[in-house]
Structures are given as C-alpha cells and as structure tokens.
C-alpha cells in the first residue's frame, strides 16, 4: 500500500473540518478525490502533506507514519504537491523554480521540458510573467522535479482556458500511463473519470463513497456532487 489515510480528523483552530476521512491508495493507482465545495478535499490534501496535521487518526505513506514529521520531511518521503491556485515562486525564473525543487531521480529538467515544451521556451522568464496555464504547468513540473512517488493535484485545471486544460489533462494521462501514482481533485468529471482508477467521495468531512468510476452512477453523482 502506498498511502493509507486512516480515519483522520482535522481542525482549523477550534472548528473541525474533517470528521473521519478514510481511504487507501496502491502504487501506480490514480485516485480522484471528489465532493462538493467545502466537503474537505483540500483539507485532506493538506493533512496528507502535514501542512495541517490531523488531530486524530493516522496517515501512513510508503509504510511510514507521517505524524510529527515537518512538511519538508513528508515531501521528501515522496509526496509531490501541486497546490490549489498555481502557486509558483513568482520572483524566480522558470528554470530556478524547477531546479530549486530538484531531487535525484528519473525526473530531470529535460523530461519536464519534454512534458511541457512551453516551459522550455520560457525558461529564463520570471514565473510571475507567465500565463495561468503556464504557471500551472510550472507547478506540476516543479512537483515532478522532486521525483515523487505520489503526485497530488489540487484543482489543477481550475480557471484555465479549455485548450490549456486539454494540455494539462493529456500530461496527467501521460504521467498515469508511465505508472506514477496520482491523487487528483478536480471538478471536470468528463476528464477526471476516464483518468481515475478509483473515486473517493467526501461529504461533510467524511468518506462517503468509494468505488470504480464506472460504478459512479448519475444518481450518486447527483447525490454527492450535484449542486
């Protein structure tokens, strides 16, 4: 098992956001973490990365519990996060954004540039001057440069032009085909479901449903994901 999230409860100060999220991921699996707004998807991701350590429950990654580990150590276990909102280092160049994160492994600057040729064209440009789509590509590239065992994408295509979304989704599909484990949060079901091996749905901070995308009926979609 690559990742085990065991019944975690997480608090923002005194208000509780997660009440028992529970799921697991195998190596090489692509899991879609789903749910309406405010159901705890991003908080779950922050808990996995120990940016918001769970109050109770347990997270085990690659056989090692992540509790009491600072976020940089959790990242070094092999978790690459692409945070919500295209968060690059704005005052560094594209090249510097990528090399700052680099750790040895099969993902090198050449491979990232091959996955996103636009980044190669813009390597000397400041990240703040990139378009939204390019910044998202940079955020994914930066996470890959850490050579993760698990790539977490939080709303990776939100607010992007359709043509850029296609580029990002085709990159995600390529990463999955190469065997990378991916945990993805996204609202575009038509793109998300074909990529995912399994779906985990959260409702009110709890795991509500888990299963194959094929089993996610319209009824279930209406119940858990409809607005």
């Amino acid at each position, binding site marked *: 098992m690559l990742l085990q999230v065991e019944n975690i409860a997480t608090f923002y100060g005194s208000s509780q956001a997660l009440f028992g999220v529970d799921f697991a991921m195998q190596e090489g699996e692509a899991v879609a973490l789903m749910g309406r707004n405010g159901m705890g998807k991003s908080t779950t991701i922050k808990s996995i990365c120990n*940016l918001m350590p769970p109050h109770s429950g347990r997270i085990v990654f690659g056989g090692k519990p992540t509790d009491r580990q600072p976020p*940089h150590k959790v990242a070094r276990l092999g978790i690459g996060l692409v945070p919500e909102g295209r*968060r690059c280092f704005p005052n560094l160049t594209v090249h510097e954004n990528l090399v700052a*994160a680099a750790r040895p492994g099969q993902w090198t600057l050449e491979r990232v540039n091959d996955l996103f040729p636009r980044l190669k064209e813009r390597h000397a440009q400041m990240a703040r001057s990139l378009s939204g789509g390019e910044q998202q590509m940079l955020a994914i590239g930066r996470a890959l440069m*850490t050579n993760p065992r698990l790539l977490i994408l939080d709303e990776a295509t939100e607010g992007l032009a359709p043509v850029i979304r296609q580029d990002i989704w085709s990159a995600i599909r390529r990463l999955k085909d190469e065997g990378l484990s991916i945990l993805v949060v996204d609202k575009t079901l038509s793109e998300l479901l074909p990529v995912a091996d399994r779906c985990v749905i959260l409702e009110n901070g709890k795991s509500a449903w888990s299963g194959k995308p094929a089993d996610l009926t319209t009824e279930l979609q209406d119940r858990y994901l409809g607005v």
Partner: protein
Amino acid sequence: MILTRENLINLILAVALLAIPLIANAAGQPFYITLATRVAILALAATGLNLALGVGGLVSFGHAAFFGIGGYVAGILASHSFSGEPVLFGLSGTNQMWIIWLVAMALAGFVGLAIGAISLRTSGVYFIMITLAFAQMVYYFAVSWPAYGGEDGLSILVRNQFPGVMTMVPMNFFLICYVILLVGIALFAVIRASRFGAALQAARQNEVRVATVGIQPYRIRLTGFVLSAMITGLAGALFADLNRFVSPSMLSWHMSGELIVLIILGGTGRLFGPLAGAALYVAFEYALGGITERWQFFLGLILLLVVLFARGGLVGLLAGKAKHG
C-alpha cells in the same frame, strides 16, 4: 554572458574602481588609493550581507559582529606574531594575510552558525532585534577585554604580509583587496545562480511552498547566513589591515547599519549593488565630510530619496528593474 545594461554598469563600476587608484598612483596621490581600498573592502563586507539580505531576505542588523571578528582576528594574530607569545594552546600568532583570512572566515562562520541557529528561529522584527542583540554582546565583550586594548582598540604595527607582495605599498594592498572583492562578487553570483541560491530565494518568497517541495527553509537560511558571515568576516580582516588598527567601533551597531545603508544605496540583491553603494558612501563621506561634520544628514536625505523613489538603488536606477525581486 549577455551584455545587458546592468552588466555594462557592473563592468564600468569594476573598471572605474581599478582606474581611480591607478591614476592616483601615477599622479602621486596615495590618499585616493586608500579611499578606493576602503570602497573595495566595504563593498566586500556588504556583498556578504547582500547574500543574507538581498538573496535570502534576512535583514541582519548584526553583521558588524562578523566584520569586527574578522578585524580582531587580524589584530590579535598580528600582535601575537609581533610579541612572540602564543595565542591559544601554544599556537603562535601570524602576520601572513592568507592564514589570517582563513581564520577570520572560519571564526566569523562559526559565530554566524551560533547566532544564525538561534535567530533564524524567529522572523521579521524579532530577527532584526536578535541579530542586533548578539552583535552588541560581541561589542561589549570586546570593550571589556583589556588584553586586546578594550575600548581603545588594538594597533597593528606593521601591515600583515602576503607572499611576494610589499603590502605596505598602498597600490599593492589595494590590488589584493580588489582581487578579493571580485572573487567575492563572483562567488555571490555563483551562489545566487545555483540550486541552493534558488532555494534561498524561494524560502524568502514562501516558506510553506518551499517545504512542500522537500526543502527545509531553516537549514537553507542558516547555510546562507553562515556564508554571508564568512564573506563579511574576511572583509573585516582586510579593513583592520587597511587601517592597521582595530577597535570595538568595527563591532558597533552603527557598522551594521552602515552595511545595510550601502546595500540599499547600491541596490538590494544586485550583484554590484554593494560596490555602487560603497563608492557612493565613501565619496559622500570624503566630499561632504570636508565641508561639514554633519555630512550624514545629507546622506540621510539621499537614502530617503532612494527608498522613496529608487527602490532598486543606484544600480536599479541606471539599469532598470531587477530580474529578481
């Protein structure tokens, strides 16, 4: 290297700093050589601070500690070499500059490690205050240390030596300082362009984001702080040799402030910002200092103008916006 406007300005600054003492030497005006040497040494000290402040965003108000430690290493080793008494554990003093430089860098780096290890656990105004407090501790220690002159300071009777060079000749000593400054600036450029430099800048921009890519901001900053202290310490050793005198004033908070002023005047984070700042500062000190004792009032006005209207300092004003911010 691409010849951008900034590179051209850097080249002009480097050539001008070399040309002025050469002309002064030809004209038989050694005083200007001493002024240029002072510029080179202050620029080196500020280059050290620029690594912490300009690249890492660490506003250290305690870099005088490293500058002074470098100075005292030069003074103490030279005085023991002169008297023949051992310094510590039977080790004798030395008047060889390169040994003094290594000891100054090692000691400044060690003290930088201790100060950084504690102060980097804080940030913002607390970081500024803690670095200031540590520097003041070193200052008062020097003041109350009669063995090495206490408040009166310590004289270096004969300038320390460098193999094959008559260091008492002002032009020769200038050239030593000039070469070291260029090496210091080159080192700064290499560090800034490295993976470590990118991580140091990234940690300045967003600590949490840096952690999520597996970088521990604290360790990166501590390494940057120690490297910064070592460069400033080396400059301190040269400064003591220039004046052939070291006193607690090298350790005072005025000195820390002066180094920050040099960087702001020249351009924070700019490769040649410290040199531009030091040149401007020394030129002001010389030109206005001859007219009025209150020349720093006018320097204050200039600083105010720079902060309000030319955030990139002198280099930024001439070369345009920085690539890094």
